[in-house]
């Protein structure tokens, strides 16, 4: 009787080999499962992305519709009306704020002029919206009057700025030779040109504010509104 080699041999039997052959089939199944899953997932993703794209597109169309609606609501003519009115109003306010009263300037000059002093001519020039430049040809009765007038003009730096006295000269008598002898040089008329600036804000309209121009801080009894003299009209 032959010995049972299959049980004693250390070589694996065939049955074990058959069991190993089942592994490739399982891998194929896993691969197929993964592949099917991916296909399914891709189809699902395609459908979801398609639907979401349609959704976002519809939102976009809605937004475009709303934007067009807002644009159609916007009125260029209304904007023009409002803008032009606002511009006109701003310009009017600007002119009112930068208005200067020449009559108030004359009042201020009158209050700052000593009575014996005569203003022969007056020139006023407005320099933008900053100040009014005044140039006055003034005749004083003496050097003392001229000095006092200069003091008055320089007394209120808020009203008169950059005061400049120039072209000072003594006017000799023209009638007779006797007057030269009888009148000393210190008592002869002195002419000079006064140049000064008056800020626009210091010249308010009388209708807007009380017509009380800023008076000089240095005043005395001789300060009054000029009156006409015999042969000259004072300003």
């Amino acid at each position, binding site marked *: 009787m032959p010995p049972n080699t299959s049980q004693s041999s250390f070589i694996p039997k065939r049955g074990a080999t058959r069991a190993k052959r089942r592994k490739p089939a399982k891998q194929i199944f896993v691969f197929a499962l993964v592949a099917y899953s991916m296909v399914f997932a891709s189809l699902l993703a*395609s459908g979801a992305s398609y639907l979401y794209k349609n959704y*976002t597109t519809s939102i*976009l169309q809605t937004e475009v519709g709303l934007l067009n609606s807002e644009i159609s609501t916007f009125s*260029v003519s209304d904007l023009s009306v*409002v803008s032009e009115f606002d511009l006109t109003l701003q310009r009017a306010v600007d*002119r009112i704020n930068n208005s200067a009263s020449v*009559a108030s300037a004359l009042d201020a000059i009158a209050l700052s002029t000593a009575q014996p002093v005569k203003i022969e*001519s007056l020139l006023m020039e407005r320099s933008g919206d900053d100040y009014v430049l005044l140039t006055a040809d003034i005749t004083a009765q003496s050097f003392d009057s001229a000095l006092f007038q200069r003091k008055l003009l320089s007394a209120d730096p808020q009203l008169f700025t950059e005061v400049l006295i120039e072209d000072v000269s003594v006017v000799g008598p023209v009638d007779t030779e006797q007057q030269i002898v009888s009148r000393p040089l210190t008592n002869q008329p002195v002419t000079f040109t006064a140049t000064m600036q008056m800020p626009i804000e210091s010249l308010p309209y009388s209708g807007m504010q009380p017509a009380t121009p800023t008076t000089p801080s240095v005043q005395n009894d001789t300060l009054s509104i000029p009156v006409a003299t015999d042969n000259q*009209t004072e300003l």
Partner: protein
Amino acid sequence: MVIALAIGYFYVQPTISEIGVIQDDIAIYTNERLKIETINTQLANEISAFESISRADKERLATYMPRFIDDISIMRDISFIVETAGVTNTTMTYEGVAEAQTAVFSQTNSQSEFSDQPPTSHSFTVVIEGTYEEVKLFLRLLEQNEYPLEVHELSMTTDGFNLITANMKLVTYVDELVLVSNN
């Protein structure tokens, strides 16, 4: 698997990209719509405020800052003031535009740019004679006019007989505006 990859590469990925672009567009459109909504709301408020202004006030403003110069009417008004003040008018001439500055309002200009531009000024030369009080009254009446008649130059001289000759340059303003639309 290849089909899945192909679907993902050729359809899903471009679709997602398109969705991203669409979402960006939505954000842009929403932002712009909100801006226009804000502007429309502001404009509606401004229109409401504008309509609340009385017609008389609008007419006063239009008189104070007219759109066009009417030199004949202005000279007539100055003549009325001359008569009221009792001075003698010897010369009155329209000198034209003193400063050629016309505001151009376009949609590219900001509000501050064109609002800084001053109105166009027109000047008149007026020579009057009268007493000091009459001349001053004339100047006061000019200030009470319904539109600005600013004295930009004034020369006062005396003739030695209680009469003053005042030579002045009067300036008034016109709100000339050229509306330019980019649409």
